[in-house]
């Protein structure tokens, strides 16, 4: 693999910065309804819950972070733009158009805030900060999050890192804002590994690719000399398991993101496919084809494999529950494809899908509360969710073709593949895109990718 396939991971140092008192507009102490009942509560929990934010997104002002130099100034603007894009795309925040800002926002360096000007444009929350060049490629980014009505600082953090890391800083700050205002972990400092498709469909080139969750920093990890399919992240997100047709032997491989090194997983006579890491990261659950279908195996990264199903049918697409105690998979053992749950040792197999159509590609939410799936009916495909016992089925998105949901690490957003039909015999009109949607079924968005894209897998958050 080429050297630039490797993903650099520079360390980011984080320090808390003190809370500042009010400096402008003492009238703001006469607090009307605020985001937080009291400063103490503001520190501990957020009052706005996610469901309320969905119908009533939080108005937030994100002026450019002030820079100590020309380059720092540019980074300050770029960081604010990335935060704005992240929060707007979540559907839970309404970033206020900078054209509405009152007064000199460029001087909002972090600790001197005129809250009257932000109240006047109905900002509930405000982000301020500054960027200091510290010589060489070192940079210090300071950020503060404010509750505008009482004029209280909710969070203050400084990050020291290298210049090239500015984008990750913007995502980390976005996650802090999301968590402090909504009381749940965010998902912005994450990546998507996916398959980049190009060329005519009968000679399709499919490459392993990776990008930030917002579609930036795209990199191709394989050169397209062989088909690559269905990549999935290791829990530490430094490794990928995927299916590769290298040497015309379709098998599951691991791909190390730091070194670009690939290795076949296990030594199976049949085709191996549909890998997913166990939550502990020590093994991969996947399927091997037989002449009568496919069986599910648990394959240790250290060597050794154990067969978990032997139904004589097609058992594929297994996925562990987040606590590792159960496995959901799809099987046509009952005639057509349905979802089944079993214990992690293969015991106690139980069907959970009973709706109209075929069910496939189940994935367990990182929160454990839902299983997302693909549902196939004669005329359409759909992405939906159900509880792990099969109850409460809801369809989120339906189209000519969609498949392969993956959860954001906070379990709030799903990403999947959507394809359009060819409109002629030469395949014109076919396209493949990544689409994200809230688990409520709202806020559907297409992710911009440089080529056709499919098979997304969302990374975990870095701990």
């Amino acid at each position, binding site marked *: 693999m080429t050297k630039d396939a490797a993903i650099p991971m520079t360390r980011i140092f984080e320090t808390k910065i003190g809370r500042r008192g009010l400096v402008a507009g003492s009238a703001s102490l006469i607090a009307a309804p605020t985001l937080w009942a009291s400063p103490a509560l503001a520190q501990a929990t957020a009052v706005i819950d996610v469901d309320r934010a969905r119908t009533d997104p939080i108005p937030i002002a994100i002026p450019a972070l002030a820079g100590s130099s020309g380059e720092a100034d540019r980074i300050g603007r770029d960081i604010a733009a990335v935060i704005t894009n992240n929060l707007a795309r979540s559907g839970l925040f309404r970033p206020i158009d900078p054209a509405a800002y009152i007064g000199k926002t460029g001087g909002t360096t972090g600790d001197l805030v005129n809250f009257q000007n932000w109240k006047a444009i109905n900002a509930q929350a405000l982000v301020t900060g500054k960027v200091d060049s510290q010589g060489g490629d070192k940079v210090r980014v300071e950020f503060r999050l404010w509750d505008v009505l009482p004029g209280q600082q909710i969070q203050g953090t400084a990050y020291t890192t290298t210049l090239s890391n500015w984008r990750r800083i913007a995502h980390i700050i976005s996650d802090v804002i999301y968590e402090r205002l909504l009381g749940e972990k965010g998902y912005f400092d994450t990546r998507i590994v996916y398959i980049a498709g190009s060329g*005519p*469909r*009968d*000679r*399709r080139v*499919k490459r392993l690719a990776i990008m930030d969750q917002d579609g930036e920093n795209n990199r191709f990890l394989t050169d397209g000399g062989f*088909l690559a*399919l*269905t990549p999935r992240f290791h829990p530490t997100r430094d490794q990928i398991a995927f*299916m590769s047709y290298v040497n*015309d032997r*379709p098998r599951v491989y691991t791909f190390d993101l730091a070194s670009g090194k690939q290795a076949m997983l296990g030594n199976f006579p*049949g*085709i191996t*496919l*549909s890998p997913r890491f166990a939550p502990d990261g020590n093994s991969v659950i996947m*399927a091997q*084809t*037989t*002449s*009568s*279908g*496919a069986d599910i195996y648990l394959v240790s990264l250290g060597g050794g494999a154990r067969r978990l199903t032997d139904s004589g049918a*097609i058992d*594929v*697409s297994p996925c562990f529950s987040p606590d590792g105690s159960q496995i959901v998979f*799809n099987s*046509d053992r009952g005639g*057509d*494809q349905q979802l089944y749950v079993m214990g992690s040792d293969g015991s106690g197999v139980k069907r959970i899908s009973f709706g109209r159509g075929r069910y*496939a*590609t189940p994935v367990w939410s990182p929160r454990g509360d839902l299983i997302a799936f*693909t549902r*196939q009916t004669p005329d359409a495909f759909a992405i939906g969710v159900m509880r792990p016992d099969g109850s409460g089925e809801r369809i989120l998105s339906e189209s*000519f*073709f969609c*498949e*392969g949901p993956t959860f954001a690490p906070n379990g709030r957003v799903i990403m999947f593949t959507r*394809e359009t*039909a*060819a*409109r*002629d*015999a*030469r*395949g014109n*009109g*076919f396209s493949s895109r990544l689409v994200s949607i809230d688990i409520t079924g709202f806020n559907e968005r297409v992710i911009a990718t440089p080529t056709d894209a*499919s*098979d997304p897998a969302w990374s975990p958050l870095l701990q």
Partner: protein
Amino acid sequence: MNTKILGAFAAVALLAACSSQETPKPVPQDAMNKGPVPGSQEDLVANVGDRVFFDFDKAVPKSTAVLDKQAAWLAQWKMNNVQIAGNADERGTSEYNIALGAKRAAASRDYLVAKGVAAARISTISYGKDRPVALGSNEEAWAKNRNAITSVR
């Protein structure tokens, strides 16, 4: 797979080169084509049939007539080894379709083995829905893409 495509191009180029010595003008296809070499991949395609088809979500060939002819041809050309590639239409999820394609390839192989072809002469692979022969999104195209294709290795 790539080498197979290259091989096909090379064969065309060779035929074109031969014919251009005989006549300076482009000639109709028929004049260039003296028929495939017996026992070759082209012979298999033109005179035997290289593929069988399947119903939606099924792995039993709709007709085994072509497989009977393949078994007889393989009995005649004992030096030929073959690969059977199983394929699926686009109306299915990617992972399931790979397993379905593998099952279709295995069904063709098992039929040939039952007809006396040595199992060691046959390898199988599945491309799921990633190597369609027809590029449309309609039942006519899907029917063509639910197949198992035999090729000389």
